[in-house]
C-alpha cells in the first residue's frame, strides 16, 4: 500500500471522465428528459381540453335537441290550431253557403208563390166574371164591371 503516481493518474482520469460527462452525456439526456416532460404536459393538457370540448359539445347537442323538440312541438301546435281554424272556416263557409242557398230557394219560392198568386188572381178575375155571367145570365157590360172585378181580385 504505497502512495505513488497512481494518485495523479486517477485524478487525471477522473477529471477527463467528469469533463466528458459534463459536455457530452449530461446535457443531451437531461434535455431529452425535459422535452419529454413538456410533451407529456402538453399531452395531458390536450386531453383535458378535449374532455372539456366533448363536455361542451354534449351540452350543445342536448340544448339543440331541446330546442328542436320545442320547435317541433310549437309547429305541431300551430298546425293543429291551423287545422282547427280551417275546419272552423270551412264550417262557417258551409253554413253561409247553406244560408245563401236557403235564402235563394226561399226567395225563389216566394217569387214562385207570388207568380202563382198573380196567375191565380188573374184567373180568379176571369172566373169571377165568368161566374157572375153565369149567375146573372144577363149580359152585363164587361167593361162596366171590370173595375169591380179587379177590385175583388185585388182583395184576394
Amino acid at each position, binding site marked *: *500500500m*504505497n*502512495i*505513488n*503516481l*497512481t*494518485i*495523479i*493518474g*486517477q*485524478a487525471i*482520469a*477522473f*477529471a477527463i*471522465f*467528469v469533463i*466528458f*460527462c*459534463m459536455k*457530452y*452525456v*449530461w*446535457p*443531451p*439526456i*437531461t*434535455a*431529452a*428528459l425535459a*422535452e*419529454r416532460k413538456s*410533451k407529456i404536459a402538453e399531452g395531458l393538457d390536450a386531453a383535458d381540453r378535449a374532455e372539456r370540448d366533448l363536455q361542451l359539445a354534449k351540452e350543445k347537442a342536448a340544448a339543440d335537441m331541446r330546442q328542436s323538440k320545442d320547435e317541433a312541438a310549437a309547429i305541431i301546435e300551430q298546425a293543429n290550431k291551423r287545422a282547427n281554424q280551417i275546419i272552423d272556416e270551412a264550417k262557417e263557409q258551409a253554413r253561409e253557403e247553406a244560408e245563401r242557398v236557403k235564402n235563394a230557394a226561399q226567395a225563389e219560392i216566394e217569387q214562385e208563390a207570388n207568380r202563382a198568386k198573380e196567375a191565380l188572381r188573374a184567373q180568379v178575375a176571369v172566373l169571377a166574371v165568368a161566374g157572375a155571367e153565369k149567375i146573372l145570365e144577363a149580359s152585363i157590360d164587361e167593361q162596366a164591371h171590370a173595375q169591380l172585378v179587379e177590385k175583388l181580385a185585388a182583395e184576394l
Partner: protein
Amino acid sequence: MASESGTLTSSEYISHHLTNLTFGKLPAGTTRYDGTVVGESGTWTFAHGTEAADMGFWALNVDTMFWSVGLGLLFIWLFQKVAKSATAGVPGNTQNFVESIIEFIDDNVKSIFHHKNDLVAPLSLTIFVWVFLMNAMDLVPVDWIPFVASEMGISYMKVVPTTDVNATLGMALSVFGLIIYYSVKEKGVGGFLAELSLQPLGKWMLPFNLFLELVGLFAKPVSLALRLFGNMYAGEMIFILIALMPFWIQWILSVPWAIFHILVITLQAFIFMVLTIVYMAMAHDHH
C-alpha cells in the same frame, strides 16, 4: 482455489492478492527479490513482492489504472451512446435504464445543492457510476482474473481499483481541489479565510478557530478516500479469506457475503457521491 496457487502459504496467498502490479524505477543498490542487486543507473521494471515500496512516489499501479480507466470508458461509452440517440419519445431499454440513473442523481443533487452550477450533477453522476463499477469488480471471484493474468505472465493483478488507496485518494483530492476552488470563487480569498478563522468562537479565538476549521477541512478528503478504500479493502479481504477455505464450504460463505456486498458497493458509491454534493454545497454556501 488456494490449491491452484499450489506452493503458496496462506499469508503469501493473501499478500499476493493484495499487491498491486506496480511499474517504476528501482534505485541503484536495491537488492531484488531473486537476490540480484540493481546496477548503477537503477532499473525500470515491474515490482516484485515488497519492491514497490522501494520505488517511492514515481511508480504507477498499472492494474489499478487499467481497470479504473477501462471501467470509466465503459461508463462513458454506455452513457454517451444513450446521450447521442436520446429521444424525447418512447425510450428504449438502455435509455430507460440510463435515464432512471440520471433522474436518481438529479433528484439527489437538487435536494442537497441549491446553487447554479453545471458541474455538480455530471460530477455526481460520474462518481456514482464509476465508483459503483469499480466496486462491482469485487463480485468477480477473487482468483479468476489473477489466474488468467498469471497464465499470461503477469504476476500481480488487483482487479478492484477502489481497494487501492491511491485511486480513492486521487478522486477525493480532486473533490478537495474543487471544494477549495469553489470556496474561493464564491466567497473570495478573504471570505474563505474569514470562514476558516472567525468561527465558531469569534475573532478573539482566531488560532483555535483556524485549527478547528483546518482539521475539519482536511478531514473531508481523507475521510472520503479512506471510507471507500477501507470498506472495499475489508470486503476484498473477506473474499480472499473465504477463498482460502476448503472448496465445499466456500460457496456457503461467499454467496451470502457477495449478496451483502451488492448492498455495500452501491452504498459506498452513493455515500461518496452524496458527500461530494454536500461538500460542494458547503463550498457555495455563505456562512
